[in-house]
């Protein structure tokens, strides 16, 4: 009997692929906490499994004063950098149920969508300004404020910031 149970457990273990075996996280784009780069005081309100995407609320990007206010922050603070680099930089982060942002992650590409590491004078400015934004909306579902992923994509043309998405 004991042998049968051991065999059954072994078979079940073989059939059930655990989350750890997968190359995917819960959702595409999820950012696991990293104590080396994340602010220690940033906390989610709910569990990791409950973090939403900004578009799940059906309202588009929600920032105090609308996107025009967000764009203004970058127009005022970003200084063009003398470089021939162009492309896109995405900074993705989580806005928690109190409207505070954390867990910032960055990717960049050239205009052919090939991964590109941008001049630090560009990326550091963009990251710093993004981290200073304080108008993120608290978004609720079922009457309860939720944590959600938001991203900003910056279009860079020869070191100039020419557009902000989404």
């Amino acid at each position, binding site marked *: 009997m004991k042998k049968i149970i051991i065999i059954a457990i072994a078979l079940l273990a073989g059939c059930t692929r655990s*989350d750890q075996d*997968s190359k*995917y*996280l*819960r*959702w*595409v*784009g999820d950012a696991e906490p990293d104590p080396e780069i994340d602010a220690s005081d940033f906390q989610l309100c709910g569990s990791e499994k409950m973090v939403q*995407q900004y*578009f799940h609320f*059906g*309202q*588009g*990007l929600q920032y105090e*004063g*609308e*996107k*025009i*206010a967000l764009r203004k922050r970058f127009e005022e603070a970003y200084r063009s950098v003398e470089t021939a680099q162009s492309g*896109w930089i*995405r900074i*993705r982060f989580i806005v928690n149920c109190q409207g505070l942002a954390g867990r910032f992650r960055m*990717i960049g*590409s050239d*205009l052919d*969508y*090939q*991964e590109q590491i941008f001049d630090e004078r560009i990326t550091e400015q963009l990251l710093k300004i993004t981290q200073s934004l304080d108008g993120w909306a608290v978004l609720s579902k079922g009457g309860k404020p939720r944590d959600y*992923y938001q*991203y900003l*994509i910056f*279009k860079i043309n020869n070191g100039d910031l020419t*557009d902000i*998405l*989404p």
Partner: protein
Amino acid sequence: MRMLLIFVLAIMSSCLAAQPNCNVYMYNGDELKYKACRALEKTRGHYQFSRAYQEALDEVLAIDSTFAYAYRVKSTAYLKSGDFITWKKLMDKAVKYDPEEELFYRASCRYQFFRDYAGAIEDIELLDSLVDYDIGYSQNGDYHLNIIKALSYKAIGKLNESLQLFERQLSDSMYSVGIYDYLHLGVLYLEMGKFSLALRALKQQALENDIAENRYYMALVYKALRDEKRYMENIKLAKEKYENGVKMFDPYVEKMDQIFLTDIIDAMKTEGF
């Protein structure tokens, strides 16, 4: 009851249309693609961002690594999360294996999500060169691809090319006008200083889909024409419509020519008559 049945059938047919008909592959003798297509069933019920959905598509692509549709649906979560690098790699494969079916998606997403105007134009022109039928609409249905091409030309500063494309598309008697077509045309005329044509287009937009944006731009035209009475009427109407949510909207991104409440309020504060 009959109307309800028609509605349900219409919804069902639109859902079914989103997935390829696997039997077509069998009919064409492509058993591998048929098998891969049937394996799409494993994605059913899973959210497109989820591990289960992505793994199911990996299984589909392990059966047939040339199944373009699977690359496209796999790419969507990357698109919506802003991961332009992975999204483009997946869509390049989709386009490689079935350009006629997949270019519309890559073109319209390049325009909508990344404002990659040159890339959108390139894809639309390539599609146009490959097919001898109407190249169709964007993935969200908001625009005909020729209108996206016109908007992309406008965005890169080629206003005359943009105008030609607008006029050609809108003069096609078989064309079903899009929900924002005349708004964009009106704004283009306004930017070109052709005020009476701008008014005509924006009035047409009011007949098709009267939103805050076309009232705002009409107000700007009247301001340019020094017609203060009509300027005030339209700017107030723009504000009213905006506050009631009658405006351009895309759940993912800001649209071209979209306005914000601050734009309206700033315009109202401006003196200049």
